[in-house]
């Protein structure tokens, strides 16, 4: 394991703790929760209107929403007798920042592949 992980995490992920990341990944690890997120990216919903889209119980949908809420992917607000759920953008932005870092790794891999292939044509890499 590289020794400088803490330094690195603070630098790039803006002091997001590993526990935060684990909650984030857990949040997106489930098909229903990803579907809920994609609905909420378009519009806010009440928990009951979300539940109407799925064949599972209201309580099960509420549980999925709670997992998303713990990961800071969504926020929930009581409005009258309804609980309104909406996307909490910071959660998505965190995921985006991490993907951007990983993308850099792949860009460099692509550069190295291009260098290897260039050798075939007698060009110095």
């Amino acid at each position, binding site marked *: *394991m*590289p*020794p*400088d*992980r803490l330094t*690195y*995490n603070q630098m*790039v992920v803006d002091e997001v703790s*590993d526990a935060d*990341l*684990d909650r*984030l*990944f857990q949040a*997106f*690890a489930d098909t229903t929760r*990803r579907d809920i*997120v*994609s609905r909420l*990216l378009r519009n806010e919903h009440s928990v009951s209107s979300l539940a109407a889209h799925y064949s599972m119980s209201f309580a099960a949908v509420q549980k999925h929403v709670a997992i998303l809420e713990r990961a800071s992917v969504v926020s929930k607000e009581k409005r009258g007798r309804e609980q309104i759920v909406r996307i909490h953008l910071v959660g*998505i*932005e965190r*995921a*985006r920042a*991490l*993907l*951007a*870092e*990983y*993308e*850099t*790794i*792949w*860009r*460099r*891999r*692509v*550069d*190295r*592949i*291009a*260098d*290897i*292939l*260039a050798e*075939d*044509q007698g060009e110095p*890499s």
Partner: protein
Amino acid sequence: MSVISTTQNPDRLNFTIVAEFDATVDRVWQIWADPRQLERWWGPPTWPATFDTHEFVEGGKALYYMTGPDGEKARGWWRITSLDAPSSLSFDDGFADDDWNPIDNLGVTKTAVTLEDVDGRTRMTTVATFVSAEQMNTLIEMGMEEGMSLAMGQIDAVLAG
């Protein structure tokens, strides 16, 4: 530049990178199929990869380690979930302990690679999907090591590519 486009899907924790190379599909397939070529680009220069096992068939496994600047080794495994030479390849990629046992709680990255001919060049589309935060962090740390070395003098090579 070889990279044509990249697309991030944060709500699915995956991204797509599309690159084009001045080489035939068969030639680009070789950089995946031949472990000696694969280890020249899979790991960053500061964490070079060595593939001990490379069973390049559907259901096959690969075992590799990456050697860090202080000689430390990070071991990894692939399981090839589909393979259709020379045009497509999917594999799961995870970390392993010193006896090559998968470290399950570090999770898995799923990678799907497609090669296609575009007017004599080869377009390579790679989709990487993460399943765990630990996995992503560790990979990114290794990439950061590379970032340091690039900053210290390899920028020219990248620009020339």
